[in-house]
């Protein structure tokens, strides 16, 4: 891990706003190269807004996002799309599109006037579908798939962009627990085996602790802590960020920090009643 030179993706002194409403002020964020960075925080803390700024979906009101040492907005849009892929929170699958056709759309930034579809495109799309295990579904319609399958198809489309950086905006929302872990395992594989730098916004703090190599905790638009989850996740931090009294113990499965919320019923005596009733 070479972190001596400046990381490929970073935000400097960012002020982020929608219309006139300022969400964040003076953010300093660096995404360590080859990390699996996860952004956590309570609802409306500005974590998705930060991700949108890092992926040039919104222009910062002040400050700058740098990609490979240059302002991200100074690149042609297609050039950014060859370096940085984004899975947005919501995408609309066109009516009647097949899995293969949708994944193939990820090749757009690599297409040129005469070379609309090359052997390389063909190969990369097949690999992307294999990596996300949707190759068996290639000829199926996206509308017919389950939520978990559909999310893997969208991820395959982003992978087909062949970008070293992958940004994922709440990739596990709307999935059941098994499919959430499935998705995160997939992300971890991409990180470990293919060497992608990943940035994901996640809701579940325990998932974040288990999978992240670098954690960014946000509250009210500000970064409260960032670093290795082992080092920064403490009961104090969780209380500060989420307002949740808890204990932090080592995850029996992985040894990563596991956040166990305190049982707030115990003090009022309702806990015993609940146990008896159950």
């Amino acid at each position, binding site marked *: 891990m070479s972190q001596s030179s400046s990381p490929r993706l970073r935000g400097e002194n960012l002020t982020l706003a929608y219309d006139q409403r300022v969400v964040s002020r003076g953010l300093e964020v660096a995404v360590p190269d080859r990390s699996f960075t996860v952004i956590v925080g309570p609802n409306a803390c500005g974590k998705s807004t930060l991700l949108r700024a890092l*992926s*040039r*979906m919104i222009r910062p009101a002040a400050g700058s996002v740098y990609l490979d040492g240059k302002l991200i907005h100074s690149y*042609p*849009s*297609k*050039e*950014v*799309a*060859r370096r940085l*892929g*984004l*899975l*947005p*929170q*919501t*995408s*609309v*699958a*066109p*009516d*009647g*599109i*097949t899995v*293969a*056709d*949708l994944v*193939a*759309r*990820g090749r*757009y*930034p690599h*297409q040129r006037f*005469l*070379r*609309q*579809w*090359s*052997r390389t*495109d*063909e*190969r990369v*799309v*097949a690999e992307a579908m294999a990596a996300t295990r949707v*190759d068996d579904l*290639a*000829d199926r319609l996206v509308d017919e798939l389950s939520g978990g399958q559909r999310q893997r198809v969208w991820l395959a489309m*982003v992978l087909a*962009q062949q970008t070293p950086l992958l940004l994922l905006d709440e990739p596990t929302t709307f999935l059941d627990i098994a499919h959430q872990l499935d998705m995160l395992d997939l992300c971890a594989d991409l990180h470990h085996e293919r060497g992608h730098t990943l940035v994901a916004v996640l809701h579940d703090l325990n998932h974040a602790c288990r999978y992240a190599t670098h954690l960014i905790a946000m509250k009210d638009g500000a970064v409260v802590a960032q670093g290795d989850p082992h080092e920064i996740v403490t009961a104090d931090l969780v209380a500060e960020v989420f307002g949740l009294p808890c204990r932090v113990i080592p995850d029996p499965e992985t040894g990563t920090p596991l956040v166990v919320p305190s049982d707030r019923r115990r003090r009022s005596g309702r806990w015993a009643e609940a146990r008896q009733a159950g």
Partner: protein
Amino acid sequence: MTAAPLRSVRLGPVAFRLRPRVLAVCLALGSLVAAALAVCLVVGDYPVPLPAALAALTGRGERLDVFFVREVRLPRALTAALVGAALGMAGAVFQSLSRNPLGSPDIIGFTAGASTGAVLTILVFGGGMLPTALGAMLGGVGTAVLVYLLALRRGVQGYRLVLVGIGISAMLGAVTHYLITRAELTDALTAQVWLVGTLNAREWSHVAAVGAGSAVLFPVLLRLGARLRLMEMGDDTARALGVSPQRTQTLALVAASALTGVAIAVSRPIAFVALAAPQLARRLTRADGTTLVASALMGAALLLCSDLVALRLLAPVQLPVGVVTTVVGGTYLVWLLYAEWRSGRA
């Protein structure tokens, strides 16, 4: 190993993806257009047999044959094909931008605006073909811009565009009819014909006008096709893939408006071709997004066939083709609305 639909086809420096079904539909529609063109040359109150008609195209054969084929029927048929293609392609672009099958120029106020513009020009500045055509174009484009701006709020949303368009159309319709009732009888008659599209008495000058517009605007829109298809997945997804939504939207809107304007200036507002052609093309090709070429071919085929009906149904009386397309298109619109409601999207 590679799934068949992804296979790359190479021809010299060109590499592309073959979509057999789209190609087959385009070839079939192209043949239909060619056949309809041939029929247009042959039928009429003065029938010319096909071999004689083809000879007449090159200027050989009887003088009357040559006159009817080269000076009357061919320009009319070519105008129909080009106007149909222009409306089909422009309609596909508008529907793609509004992400709504109802988002065609007919519905979003363009057509009504063109009528109002033309009628206003005739009544205020007095007829003249060129000023009237310009008035129609200005009216159409102006209305499209107005509707677009009224519907604009953090990007354009399909249904807002359609609803604003329907409202503006209704208001403009009232203005047009008011203008006509206030006009002198002769002016009113001149103005009245601008309410319904027609291909009667189209000449080579019309072909030249719509041909020149198409030659410039077809390539512009075809280049935007891939970007339009990506934008159908949402602005974020499109931007993430390297498309600039704002720029694409503006460029496509200007080019499609200009194309519709040219078509209306040449043939007056022909209703429903722009609404129906792209949807029919998409259903036939089963494509995963806007198909500009198939939409254009479908528009050409629809308008040529409608014009044949308009020409021969009550012969020797010639109906304006707009009447035919309205009857056919109205039926289609009812069906479309019904299907949309059933699928719970409207």
